[in-house]
């Protein structure tokens, strides 16, 4: 079944709710046709249309000034629906990578064809080409000039959409279950075909040259080819078709492709597309300046952070300098106070030095007297030796002397032992043993005691050192 609904029912687009609620100026510059309107609270105001064709940026500048003069208002936000020979659209395949990697891949691809391009990549949700993107590329120079024109008029280009974006939005808003839908519109001899899923997901888009009035049959053939391609790629049939253009082409397409399809036809309404474009958010994937603006925003943020950090650094340096200066002033005032009491300080130091020298001399004197008095070894040794003598031994001589050179004491004991030789030797050996193992740590001379026989016993003579470490 096929049907062509009346134009009033098919007015394009029917946005259910605007995504953008701000104020702004919306313009459509489509194939030399320039229109502008003020967008406020989701409503498009009166439209101004350029009387002649607008082809170049100079003409655009003039048209913009005329539009602003006619529309009034002081909007700064500017959204542009653009169909221009400089604004290119093409499909690119990217490996199935993470979004950032895919974007880098696409960036490299785009960079080959344009210098400093401003571009957007819209992923096509086709079943068999899940990594295909449609790129909307604006040359850097064109964009820079456009920006300059707008900036001079305090306008910010926040959104720049290709025709396919509002067309896709028109599809998303239409009723039609869960099947994909197709929209086609002719602008200045260029036909834009968009196939999308409900919800506004792009399946694919294509453009071809055809005059809907003169080449109605060819338009039908191309639409039909798009339907076949959609069936092949998406695995399902497109049952809803929206056609915006000459009624001859619409009628022809309905005849050729309308079997079991719902076809809605209407003349193209640029105002409707403008309204749909105005309602699209700047984060829309088809917004050619979205990424550029985000990058600019990041750059501005980093710039602000950098400037703030630079001034913070300067402030820190200044604070540190002021702190050091204050500390130095404090140190200087302390030093001046010190200088003032320098004479008394010198006098006190001299007095203290005298006192210290005197005290040191006194301490040394006491220590010298104490150290020069030798330990009482010589005085105590006679009593100690006497206590060690066994019965039968009698001392005849005891000597003990301090040896300054060796810092030890030497001693000699001489005496007699009564009785036999064996008893005498045992008694002397006992004495030696007690001396050697006693508290005075006696160390006997080599050979030990010398015994000499004499009447009634023996004479002995032994010597050694004490406390020799």
């Amino acid at each position, binding site marked *: 079944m096929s049907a062509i609904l009346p134009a009033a029912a098919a007015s394009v687009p029917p946005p259910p709710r605007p995504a953008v609620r701000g104020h702004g100026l919306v313009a459509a510059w489509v194939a030399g046709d320039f229109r502008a309107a003020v967008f406020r609270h989701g409503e498009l105001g009166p439209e101004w249309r350029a009387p002649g064709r607008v082809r170049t940026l100079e003409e655009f500048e003039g048209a913009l000034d005329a539009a602003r003069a006619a529309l009034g208002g002081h909007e700064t936000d500017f959204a542009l629906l653009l169909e221009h020979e400089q604004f290119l659209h093409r499909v690119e395949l990217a490996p199935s990578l993470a979004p950032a990697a895919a974007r880098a891949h696409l960036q490299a691809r785009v960079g080959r064809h344009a210098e400093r391009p401003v571009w957007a990549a819209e992923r096509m949700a086709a079943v068999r080409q899940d990594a295909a993107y449609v790129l909307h590329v604006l040359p850097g120079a064109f964009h820079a000039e456009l920006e300059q024109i707008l900036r001079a008029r305090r306008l910010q280009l926040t959104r720049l959409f290709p025709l396919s974006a509002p067309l896709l939005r028109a599809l998303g808003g239409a009723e039609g279950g869960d099947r994909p839908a197709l929209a086609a519109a002719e602008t200045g001899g260029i036909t834009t075909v968009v196939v999308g899923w409900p919800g506004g997901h792009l399946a694919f888009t294509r453009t071809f040259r055809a005059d809907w009035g003169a080449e109605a049959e060819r338009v039908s053939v191309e639409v039909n080819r798009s339907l076949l391609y959609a069936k092949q790629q998406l695995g399902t049939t497109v049952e809803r078709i929206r056609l915006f253009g000459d009624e001859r082409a619409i009628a022809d397409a309905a005849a050729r492709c309308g079997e079991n399809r719902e076809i809605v036809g209407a003349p193209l309404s640029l105002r409707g597309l403008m309204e749909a474009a105005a309602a699209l958010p700047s984060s829309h994937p088809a917004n050619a300046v979205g990424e550029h603006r985000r990058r600019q925003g990041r750059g501005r943020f980093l710039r602000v952070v950098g400037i703030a950090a630079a001034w913070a650094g300067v402030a820190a340096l200044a604070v540190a300098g002021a702190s050091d200066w204050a500390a130095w002033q404090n140190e200087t005032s302390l030093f001046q106070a010190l200088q003032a009491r320098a004479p008394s300080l010198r006098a006190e130091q001299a007095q203290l030095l005298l006192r210290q020298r*005197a005290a040191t001399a006194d301490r040394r004197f006491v220590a010298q007297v104490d150290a020069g008095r030798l330990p009482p070894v010589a005085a*105590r*040794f006679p009593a100690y030796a006497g206590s060690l003598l066994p019965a039968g031994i009698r001392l005849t001589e005891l*000597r003990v002397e301090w040896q300054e050179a060796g810092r030890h004491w030497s001693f000699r004991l001489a005496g007699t032992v009564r009785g036999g030789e064996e008893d005498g030797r045992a008694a002397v050996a006992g004495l030696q043993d007690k001396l050697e193992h006693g508290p005075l740590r006696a160390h006997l001379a080599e050979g030990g005691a010398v015994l000499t026989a004499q009447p009634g016993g023996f004479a002995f003579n032994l010597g050694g050192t004490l406390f020799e470490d």
Partner: protein
Amino acid sequence: MKIKALLPFLVPAACAAALLGWRWTVFAPQVRSEREARRPLQDLERETARLRGEISERQAAEMNRQAGALAAALPQTPDTLAPALEGWRKRIAAERWEGAFAPEPAEAGGGWAPVRLQLHPAAGNDRPWPSLLVILDEFSAPEAHMGLTRLAIRADEGGTYSAEASLRLACAVPLRAKSAQ
């Protein structure tokens, strides 16, 4: 255009450079040189504080008192030993021994005067050994301020003791002179 864009960075950078330049080329060298010039006086202050804390007035007075008392108790020089030796001779006599002191030549500038001592029991000393030990004990007492460097005791066949000792007596004047050096 680029200069204008860089201006927000150039201005703080210039300020930072000026601040750092002032700090490194003006302030820091001035601080260094003035601190160098101030060092002697600050060293004097530190040294004075150290001296103040090292020995207090009270400690110095106490040490002076001790040294004075010690010096007063000692013979002053090796040439003025006689009063001290006479005192010792009396102490020895009290133990019923006879002591003969013979000062020996002292080392020049030495603080200790060597003295030779000959000891014999006095007549009637029936306990020569214990009394000799008492005398030796007194020699070694701290307040005697002398050093017993040599001792030789002999006992003959009849049980008669004799002793010879070398002593050194501290002399206040040379020892104080050495201490003051």
